[in-house]
């Protein structure tokens, strides 16, 4: 489409008219990019983006340059619109030969902007995720737990950089493989570490749904006999005179349960 346009304009106007038209396009581009800038800014503001990114490092960096995340994003959008206008105008006036360079440049331009947006969004979302996860883990009073939010943040950064590089056409295969290995390792570690918990939870869901025994029943699991006080997803609590056995639910499945009726 973009290649066809200059020819169409040329056939409608004269050579000189095309030059005037290209000036007009430049002018329209200025106005258009200003409108884009205004519109993006108001849209992002009303969408609550400026509140959402408040306090993230990216926003703080932007602030130190006298702008903000919303400002940067809308400026990029405006620059995109303006560069588009320039390219169009140059094409119209046929200042440079509308050769391969322009074709590739115009083709490359959108990816460049997508890459920039991907980076910005990745940075902001990564920081937000870190804050959110940190907030959720705040009640866990364990110093080492603070590594988990960091991990989340850098995982998201990594994915954002991958998307950006992919847009730019950089060979990212090795990085994707690295990401795959990383994800695989996380899953494997989780599976191994939480194996017993997962088995207990699977058994617990069955117990909760079917209730083969319920609170108040007298039961025996292995050698622990008593009255069931509580059944939750992971454990069953059995109590007999002053002793409370907390039995992982998987043992109920492994060794079975004896209900004692009298």
């Amino acid at each position, binding site marked *: 489409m973009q290649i066809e346009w200059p020819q169409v304009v040329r056939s409608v106007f004269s050579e000189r008219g095309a030059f005037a038209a290209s000036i007009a396009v430049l002018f329209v581009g200025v106005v258009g990019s200003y409108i884009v800038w205004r519109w993006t800014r108001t849209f992002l503001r009303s969408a609550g983006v400026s509140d959402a990114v408040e306090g993230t490092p990216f926003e703080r960096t932007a602030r130190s340059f006298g702008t903000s995340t919303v400002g940067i994003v809308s400026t990029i959008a405006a620059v995109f619109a303006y560069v588009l206008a320039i390219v169009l105008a140059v094409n119209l006036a046929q200042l440079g030969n509308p050769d391969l360079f322009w074709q590739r440049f115009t083709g490359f331009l959108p990816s460049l902007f997508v890459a920039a947006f991907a980076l910005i969004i990745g940075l902001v979302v990564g920081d937000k995720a870190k804050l959110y996860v940190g907030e959720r883990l705040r009640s866990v009073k364990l110093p080492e737990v603070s590594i988990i939010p960091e991990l989340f943040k850098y995982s998201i950064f990594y994915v954002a950089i991958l998307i950006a590089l992919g847009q730019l056409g950089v060979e990212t295969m090795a990085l994707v493989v690295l990401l795959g290995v990383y994800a695989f390792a996380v899953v494997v570690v989780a599976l191994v570490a939480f194996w017993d918990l997962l088995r207990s939870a699977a058994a617990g869901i069955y117990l909760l749904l079917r209730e083969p025994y319920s609170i*108040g029943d007298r039961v025996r699991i292995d050698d622990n006999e008593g009255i069931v006080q509580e059944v939750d997803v992971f454990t069953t609590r059995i109590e007999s005179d002053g002793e409370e056995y907390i039995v992982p639910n998987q043992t109920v499945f492994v060794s079975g349960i004896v209900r004692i009726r009298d």
Partner: protein
Amino acid sequence: MTGLDEFLEELVADADAVCLFSPGKSHYETLASDDVVVVGPDNDVEADAFVQLPLEFEDLRDRIRFGVEGAVDHGYVDEDADLVCLAKVFGEDADTVARVRADEFEKSGVYDLFANSRAEPSVIRDVLEVAVELGKKGQKGKPVGALFVVGDAGKVMNKSRPLSYNPFEKSHVHVGDPIVNVMLKEFSRLDGAFVISDSGKIVSAYRYLEPSAEGVDIPKGLGARHMAAGAITRDTNAIAIVLSESDGLVRAFKAGELILELDPEAY
């Protein structure tokens, strides 16, 4: 205003400790250097000396009384300490200063009811709130009664028998779930006791309690529902929360004794 300043200074002079009732974070930090005990439903400010009082008692007297009782129980303040209490009564910020001696009150056991029962404090609070709500609403304007037995559910189930089919069989409703508020109206129609586990699961309704009532000492004039409540808490480690049909008050029992009396209308 010098007279007022002097009066305030005199009021807070030589206090052994300060009790903050649900303070804001900045508020707490300005005072944190002193001997400060924080009392409230949640430890938002991460204070070291914290007394959990799950219920925000509307009456300031009750709030201070039960909070101070908890602080003494914890050993944060001595039994004969002079305390300055900062609380919010009208607004969102602390607006009231009160001075009390820690031994001014008779021991009520309310703090003990929340903190040292089998059930979790939040569960007890939720059940109290359900009872209060039920007391306010009633059924079609008529007062209703209800009996909730909280904690030690296994034993309670063994000391009771069903009056009818248990509507909570194979359900997993917990007090504090939003659905419980919707079910309140249905609750008032069910006779017998509700049995609630330590973690707040509603185990059963329609339970007829069969504890031995020997040695239960509850105020004369209370009916069979209260007697059953007192007796079951004496026989097991549960606590019982009763909504009286005749006078509309919510009462809490522990170890066979009446601990707390609340008026739903005033709460």
